[in-house]
C-alpha cells in the first residue's frame, strides 16, 4: 500500500508530532517499507478467528468504587514544566 506525503501529514497531526515538510518524503518511504512488509498478514486466512488482546484469559478484576488514593497534588505537580496555584499551566486555549 503506497503511503503518500498527505497521509504522513495526516497521521503526524493525529499523533501530534510535528514533521517538517522536507522530512515528509523520507518518512513516507520508511513507513511504506514497513507497511509493505506488514501487508504479508493479508495472506493469512482469519475468517471466524476471534481477535485477541488478553493472552492469559484472566478476567479484569473489579473493585469497590471508592477513593483509595490521592490528596497529594503537590507531588503530582512536582515534575510539571510549568505550574501555578496547584494547576498545570498551558498556553491560553480560549481567546
Amino acid at each position, binding site marked *: 500500500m503506497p*503511503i503518500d506525503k498527505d*497521509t*504522513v501529514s*495526516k*497521521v*503526524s*497531526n*493525529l*499523533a*501530534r*508530532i*510535528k*514533521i517538517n515538510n522536507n522530512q515528509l518524503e523520507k*518518512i513516507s518511504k*520508511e*513507513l511504506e*517499507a*514497513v*507497511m509493505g*512488509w*506488514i*501487508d*504479508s*498478514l*493479508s495472506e*493469512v486466512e*482469519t475468517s471466524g*478467528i*476471534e*481477535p*485477541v*488482546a*488478553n*493472552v*492469559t484469559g*484472566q478476567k*479484569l*478484576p473489579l*473493585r469497590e468504587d471508592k477513593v483509595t488514593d490521592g490528596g*497529594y497534588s503537590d*507531588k*503530582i505537580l*512536582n*515534575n*510539571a*514544566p*510549568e505550574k501555578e496555584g496547584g494547576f*498545570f499551566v*498551558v*498556553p491560553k*486555549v480560549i481567546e
Partner: protein
Amino acid sequence: MSEIVSKTILQIKEGLKKREYSALEVTDAFISASECNKKLNFYNTFTKEKALEMAKTSQSRIDSGEDKILDGIPIAIKDLFCTEGTLTTASSKILGNFIPNYESTVTQNLWDAGAIMLGKVGCDEFAMGSSNETSFFGEVINPWSKVINKNLSPGGSSGGSAAVVSAGAALAATGTDTGGSIRQPAAFCGVTGIKPTYGRCSRWGIIAFASSLDQAGPITKTVNDSALMLNVMSGFDPKDSTSANKNTPDFLKACGNFNLKNLKVGIPKEYQISGMSSEIINLWETGYGWLKDRGADIIEVSLPHTKYALPTYYVIAPAEASSNLARYDGVKYGYRNSQNHLDDLYANTRADGFGNEVKRRILIGTYVLSAGYYDAYYRKAQRVRNLIIQDFNKVFKDVDVILTPTTPSAAFEVGSQQDPISMYMNDVFTVPASLAGLPAMSVPSGLSTNGLPLGLQIIGKQFDEENVLKVASNIEDQAKFPFLN
C-alpha cells in the same frame, strides 16, 4: 575485588553468611567494577551513595541475624522502572528530567528483600529497539567487544542490564521484555535472562510500551540466580489489573534436577529460517543433544504461523505504544517545547522529545489504528495473534517445552544495521512467545566462530516457568559457558 565480582548471587550470599566479606565490601567491589568500565556507558544514573547507604542497612540486618533473601546483593535497574526520588528517563529526552514520586512494584519487591541499587542502566528509548542505539544517552557497549576489538551492540532493549551483568559490574539486573528485550541482549552478552509468563510480574510503575506484551524479568549470570531473582520480583499486585492472581512457586527448586526422563522437548521446524548460519544450527543441534543425553524425548513440532509473528508484532506493539505514549505532552512532566498555542506545544514537544525510532512506531501505530485501517491492520493482527496462540496450544499438548536459538546471529557491530526491518529481524525467534504470553528464557550455550556468545531459548507453557528453568539449568550444566567475568 576481582574475586567478588566473578561470583554469583548464591555464592555471595554464602560468603556474607560466613562473614568472608561484608555487604559494604561487596558493594564497593561492584561500584569499582562499574567505575573501571565507564567507557561501556552502562548507567544513565549511577547511584553510588544510595548503594552504600543500602549496603550499611543490609549489613546491620545480617549482623543481627535478620537478613533477607537479597541482603547485600548489588543490582542494576533498567531505566524503565520508576524509582522514587531517582531520575527515571526511559533513555528518552522527553523524560530526561523525570523524578518519580513512586516506586514500581517490582523494584519495591527487590528493596523489600534487601537488594542494593547501583543505579539505572541504559536501554533503547522507551524499550523500542534491539541494539541500544535508540537511547538518547548513547548506546551501552557490549563487554565482549574486547574479544574482537570492535564496538559491539549489547542488544536491546535491556542492553545495559545484560552488559552490566556480563562485565561483572552487577550481580543481577532487572529487564523488561516486550518482543525479546530480555532474551536477545542476554544472548548477545553471554548471560541468562528470563521473561516470565505475562502477568507473573506486576507492570505497575514500569514505563509502558505495549501493555498486552510488556513483562519484567531478571538478567543474571546463572539460571539459579535468575530463579532467585524471579522469586522476589513475581507476585500478585492489585495495582496492575493484568497481574496474575497466582501463588509464586519456589523457582529455585526447579533448578539443578539433571534427570529429564519423561520430559518432552519440541523442536519447531519453522524456526529453521532460510539463510540461518551453520553455527546457529550446530548450537541448536548440540543443545537438544544435551537434553537427549539427560533422558528427554526430542520431538519435531510445527508452529505454522511463525513467519507472521513479526509483522503481527509490528502492528500490535506500535498500536499500543501510540496510545501509551500519548501521555507525553509537555504538560504534566518531562520536556516541554514552549509555544504560544497548545497544539503547537504538543506537536513540537513530541517532535523534539522523541527519537526517530519512537516517532516511527508512534506513526505506524497511529496509522494502523486510524479510521479505514483499523480492521485491515489492527483487527487483522489480533486475529493472527490468536492463530499463533493456537499453534502453541496444539504443540503444548505433545511437549513440555520448546527449544530454539535465541537469536539468528551473534552480537553485531554498533552502527552496522541501519534498515529498520533488518533490525526488527533480530527478534524473529523471541516475538512468537511474547505474542502468546509464554515464559521464555535465554541461556548462554556456546561461542560463535569468532568467539562471541550465542544463546538457546527455552519456551514453556503459561505459568510453567519451572520446566523452563529445569531445562535451562541442564543446558547451563552441559554448556560450561566461559563467562567473561
